[in-house]
């Protein structure tokens, strides 16, 4: 039961919900950069336990299925094909054994999740199957996929796939069997610029007045040197009012820190657990998934929000995911 990698794409890794409760050991949760798309991909193939999926980045992989399995590709809009036929996104697709998936480029967004019924069955490390690239552990051998890798799938993935595909009444035959409905895209970025809510950070008042204004007024661009650890943002340099040393302290997913060069870095899934740079802002948790979908060069603006607003945004985001999940679950029950 395996999935063969023909071409790895730009950065394809195994990810799940991440490893938690170990930040005091310097171990960051990590996991899927866009947890919303990840959860929907899993829901679409009937996985309910946060099973591991593949995270594609900008240029997707080419894969060969050696089993007949139920899959879903969710998140960024990739030009994906199955044996040359267009692969419909955001929905369950039953793929016949021997079929080849070519994911192509992301036309909108930057990351997509390929979920397979039963999940990618790599061994968990510290309670998670997520790949943690900086320390080279987890996922598939602690690294991004390469050509000729054979990823283990759940031993019962073919049986699971058949059983789950049953109630979906997948029409037609051939290599691509899917449904006429799809899950909503909840995290794809707006066309012009993304609007990202952010709270003032702990050291906001330590920046000079121009920097405080510029952070929320400027249009920022995601720098090419952005990765799963952090997004570097291009825009006006942000200066501090004083250059007092800051004691290294805990950081969060979405912390925006500003090193001495004045160019902010938004900390993403694989960020370091502590840091000594001043924090100008903290991105609202509800908007981290949309930020993660921005490709290098994409534009964004920050909108100031309060803690209460950030919590409300989280609840609203959670409701959208739950509603999408219920919609998907109802298809499985019919």
């Amino acid at each position, binding site marked *: 039961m395996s999935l063969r990698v023909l071409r790895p794409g730009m950065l394809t890794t195994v990810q799940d919900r991440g490893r938690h409760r170990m930040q005091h*050991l310097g171990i960051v949760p990590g996991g899927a950069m866009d947890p919303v798309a990840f959860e929907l991909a899993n829901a679409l193939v009937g996985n309910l336990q946060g099973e591991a999926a593949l995270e594609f980045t900008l240029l997707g992989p080419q894969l060969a299925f050696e089993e007949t399995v139920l899959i879903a590709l969710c998140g960024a809009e990739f030009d994906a094909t199955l044996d040359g036929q267009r692969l419909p996104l955001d929905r369950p697709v039953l793929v016949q054994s021997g079929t080849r998936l070519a994911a192509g480029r992301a036309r909108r967004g930057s990351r997509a999740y390929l979920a397979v019924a039963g999940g990618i069955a790599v061994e968990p490390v510290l309670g998670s199957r997520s790949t943690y690239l900086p*320390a080279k552990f987890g996922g598939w051998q602690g690294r991004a996929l390469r050509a000729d890798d054979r990823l283990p799938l759940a031993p019962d993935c073919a049986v699971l796939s058949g059983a789950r595909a049953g109630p979906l009444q997948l029409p037609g035959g051939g290599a691509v069997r899917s449904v006429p409905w799809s899950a909503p895209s909840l995290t794809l970025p707006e066309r012009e610029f993304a609007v990202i809510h952010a709270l003032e950070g702990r050291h906001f008042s330590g920046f000079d007045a121009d920097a405080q204004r510029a952070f929320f007024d400027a249009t920022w661009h995601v720098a090419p040197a952005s990765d799963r650890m952090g997004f570097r943002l291009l825009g006006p340099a942000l200066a501090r009012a004083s250059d007092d040393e800051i*004691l290294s302290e805990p950081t969060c997913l*979405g912390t925006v820190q500003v090193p001495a060069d004045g160019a902010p870095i938004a900390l993403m899934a694989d960020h370091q657990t502590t840091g000594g740079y001043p924090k100008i802002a903290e991105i609202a948790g509800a908007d981290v998934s949309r930020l993660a979908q921005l490709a290098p060069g994409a534009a964004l603006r920050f909108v100031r929000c309060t803690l209460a607003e950030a919590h409300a945004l989280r609840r609203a985001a959670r409701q959208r995911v739950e509603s999408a999940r219920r919609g998907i679950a109802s298809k499985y029950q019919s």
Partner: protein
Amino acid sequence: MNPLRIEPLGDAALYAEFSRSLDLRVNEALQAVAAALRERAPVWVRDVVPSLGGLALHFDPEHAELPEAPLRAATDLLLECLKATARGRTAGREVEVPVCYDAEFGLDLGEVAAQTGLDAAEVVRRHAATEHRVLMVGFAPGQPYIGGLDPRLAVPRRATPRTRVPAGSIAIANAQSVVYPFEIAGGWSVLGRTPLRVFDPRREPPSLLLPGDRVRFAPISRQRFEALR
């Protein structure tokens, strides 16, 4: 000990700041609070992260039992733990870390000797003589920031960081020591190397050193280093 401030760290964590400069007694007290927090933490608290001058509480924002006002609830919990540990001291574990200070591993031993006006053997003696404490594990998995350096050994960071410091290297800067769990770039002065694995994801706990641990560096020979590897 009362925090200077308790404030949100984004919408899923708070930070209680106890000191803005490095103070070993404050750090020791906050390790006790962190331990108490970990014991009492409700299910929606995910992480308790003690750092040099404060501690963070991370919540699970999706948890079904997360209170309406998590920041308020976490603050109350923190204040309760502060009271409970007002006079307490955490014992911390006692850990001996064997270090080979041979020139082959102690890349900057000569420079530190020159900067401090001590000879290399005295630098080693002083580094191994004091009881050190793990103030924080962070930045990278298992990377300890260790306080308790002999003040005579306080040297600033190197002007030019090394692009590659081997895993297991023990380095000092200002008032602290660090042990690098992986080969990384680093600007601290390297005194020696431990044969032990500082971080091993297959081990329980994966980190050799935990926050609050009391550490002694034990000088070992090159031969012993090989034997312990």
